[in-house]
């Protein structure tokens, strides 16, 4: 019997933003997202060494091996990546934390950790590579599969889909967006905005599974998305601009100042839409769902909320690198406690 070759090939050191060769299917939406992630970090000039990558289990969750080879990464257990990321970020607040998950990983087994991560406003860019199926286990439905869609094997999904964006807005998330893996420009812009956000930046990226979900009846297939996509906001990333206000008139463009001083420009296609109102975001999302449309863009943005590091009021230096002198209280402290217990 043959031995098995090493998979994938070791990363090329020449380009630290790239990763090893993908082992995903040719044409998989996830690969396009990897490309955009590379672009985003490269264009923002963030050194990969400052990035930490987190993922769960699935085709999507494998993808962190295929970009930013010079970043530390942890490929955790299925559906439980948010907790691992939480611990790591608490240990080292200096990371740019990037989480990559799938719809099965997030919305099925992982919905609990997802919900609680959002509540904590953990500083992380959290990408759901959303294809409505479990790719890696060969195409069973996930909880984001649309009711009524049919799988390749002919099974119909009878349960309502979870709209992760609506959920996120409702649960208090501070950056909620949706895009499409094939929309290079918008996805890149949203990614860059997300990276500059302080708090949980949650992006649901519709990312068709060419192998198990690219067929009629599925709203997560390329063809369906191309037909039904209706961009909500055109997002252009402008680094280090000075406008701060997000109070703006319907029909115009707004530029929101992000935590690192960079900005994101939102174009209001819908005159009623206000990206700082949870209620409007929820209404739009529900309306789109009722119309069976996929809205893309940044639905909600709150740049003032405290992130989890601030809530916990941590010291500025990463906890992981604090020296013993700062971590072990002096002899007197122990003496004091002992005295009280006498």
């Amino acid at each position: 019997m043959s031995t098995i070759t090493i998979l994938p090939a070791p990363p090329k050191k020449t380009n630290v933003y790239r990763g090893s060769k993908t082992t995903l299917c040719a044409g998989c939406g996830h690969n396009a997202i990897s490309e955009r992630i590379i672009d985003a970090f490269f264009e923002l000039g963030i050194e990969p060494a400052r990035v930490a990558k987190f993922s769960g289990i699935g085709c999507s969750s494998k993808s962190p091996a295929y970009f930013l080879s010079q970043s530390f990464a942890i490929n955790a257990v299925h559906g439980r990546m948010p907790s691992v990321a939480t611990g790591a970020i608490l240990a080292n607040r200096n990371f740019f934390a990037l989480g990559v998950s799938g719809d099965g990983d997030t919305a099925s087994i992982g919905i609990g950790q997802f919900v609680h991560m959002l509540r904590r406003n953990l500083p992380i860019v959290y990408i759901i590579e959303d294809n409505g199926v479990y790719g890696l286990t060969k195409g069973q439905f996930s909880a984001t599969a649309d009711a009524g869609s049919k799988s390749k094997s002919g099974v119909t999904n009878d349960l309502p889909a979870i709209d992760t964006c609506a959920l996120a807005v409702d649960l208090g998330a501070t950056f909620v967006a949706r895009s499409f893996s094939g929309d290079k420009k918008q996805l890149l812009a949203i990614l860059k905005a997300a990276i500059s956000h302080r708090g949980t930046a949650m992006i649901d990226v519709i990312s068709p599974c060419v192998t198990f979900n690219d067929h009629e009846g599925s709203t997560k297939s390329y063809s369906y998305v191309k037909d039904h996509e209706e961009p909500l906001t055109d997002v252009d990333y402008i680094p280090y601009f000075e406008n701060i206000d997000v109070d703006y008139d319907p029909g115009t463009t707004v530029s929101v100042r992000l935590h690192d001083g960079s900005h994101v420009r939102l174009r209001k296609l819908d005159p009623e839409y206000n990206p700082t109102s949870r209620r409007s975001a929820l209404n739009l999302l529900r309306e789109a769902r009722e119309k069976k449309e996929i809205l893309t863009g940044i639905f909600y943005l709150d740049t003032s909320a405290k992130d989890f590091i601030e809530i916990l009021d941590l010291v500025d230096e990463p906890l992981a690198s604090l020296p013993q002198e700062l971590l072990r209280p002096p002899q007197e402290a122990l003496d004091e406690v002992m005295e009280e217990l006498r």
Partner: protein
Amino acid sequence: MAPLDLAVQEEEKLSKPTEKIINDFNIQVATVNGSGSQTANTVLLRSIFQMGVPVSGKNLFPSNIAGLPTWFTIRVSKKGYLARREAIDILVAMNPESAREDIFKLVSGAMVVHDEPLSLKSLRDDLVYYAVPFDKLVATVCPDAKLRRLVKNMIYDGVLAKLLGIEMPEIEKSLRKQFRKKPKAADLNFNAAKAGYEYAEKHLTKADPYVVERMDLTKGKIIIDGNSAAALGCVFAGVTVATWYPITPSSSLCESLIEYLKRYRVDKETGKASFAVVQAEDELAALGMAIGAGWAGARAMTSTSGPGISLMAEFAGFAYYSEVPVVIFDIQRVGPSTGLPTRTSQSDILSAAFLSHGDTKHILLLPASVEECFTFSLEAFDLAEEFQTPVFVMSDLDLGMNNWMSDPFQYPTKPFHRGKVLSGEELDRVKEFARYRDVDGDGIPYRTLPGNHHPRAPFFTRGSGHNEWAIYSERPDDYVRNMDRLARKYETARQRVPTPAIDENSKAKVGLIAYGTSHWAVVESRDRLLAAHDLETSYLRLRAVPLNHELEDFIRRHDRVYVVEQNRDGQMHDLIRLEVEPEAALKLRSVRHYNGLPISPRSVVEQILAQEGID
């Protein structure tokens, strides 16, 4: 009557006194939970302790919040025995619901302090009864009717002080310590105690043999529960990330950790914390967070009990295989399933030792005392980082939640052991960095920490297969090499974990092995076996898994070796059988106690005598 009760009657006969019994008895206070008896009980315990007399307190409480029977037992032992003694000599009967049954459990000649309206006298005529009109007394000292329920219990402290000879200044001292920041409450309570004292002085005539007399055996000692001791250990071990999900009996570990950290680890100037404590959404998340933190270089821990350990199984395997340091406290309670949350046991040994599917073996530390709760916490963080693996600290409800007397804890002298971590400069010096290579032959690889910006520092951590460079691999040879190295690492740990504590008796043919809280019953049992049955014994106390080779030698030196523990299936007995040669295994016998109450010397002695064929 259950067999247990008959046994109580018998022990009573053996120990039945004819004259004054000084500093050697068991007080039981029977109340309902939520009625605020904790202060009164703690004050009573501490007052005797302050008189130099060894004491230990055990709280037996139901799994609800208020209104059900609760028993607090104070063992007064001039010999310093800290194990649970079954026989009760003094009952404070505050709870009408349990009083009848409580009375029938007393030794003959026992004293009963009871609420006057309870007419118990008719139940047994071999007891000494003292009726106290608690409600009347409390009305006189506490004008505010709303506060009376809370203060009422302090009256029995006063009554017992008078009857047993506990000095009122000690009561006052310990009361004021309790109410350090509330002098008014202290006054109110002390008045209640005084009212009890004075009532007893006036109306009660001492007719029982029990007396407290000053000794000099507690000087410098402290009283603390194991969970607080462990929390303190974590603080001095420099814990930076602690995660938890509430569960009895483990919650108080993280709750006191928060207290200590707020006190000693918040920057005085900036008000900022050098720690993060997170109440997670469940135990899976709690361990996931601790693993993430350990991976990123924090000294990370979580604390839980049995059900949480079960929920952590997958993540524990992930940490073992991806080699992430993390400390897991298991404050064991009765299993399986959600179990009896307020009863103690040592029944998670096997599950923790092999936690997770696949081939997984973990390091366990086995503290027996509050002092070891402190020192093993320090040890656990060092071992976790040295071995880049989860380390379980196996405490239990009895140790974690009860009050134990102890020598004060020593300030740690060893600096943190942070294990084989390569800095950027060190990477410059080494030719190659392969995350999972066994460079030193001990199975322990070198790691780098996220945040290390050296170009060769980053690696990809995964639960799935990888080669020495942490690159994904499904190659059979890579897989085997890695598994073998992990096994080698475990063998290295065998030499490095705390060694057993051995008390060898060269005359002994019989050896005893115990661990954790079973220790205290064994110590006392050995004395009893010798005194009453002429049975000489040696004793080995296990302090960690993997089991050290000294264990096997100990077994070989004896003819029969009893493994004493608190679970049904003899879990440590089984673990030992797996580790020692069958010749040694032949000598092993199992002594098990698993009714949810802390193990008592009596049950140990009885089982050993039965197996030795002595009666």
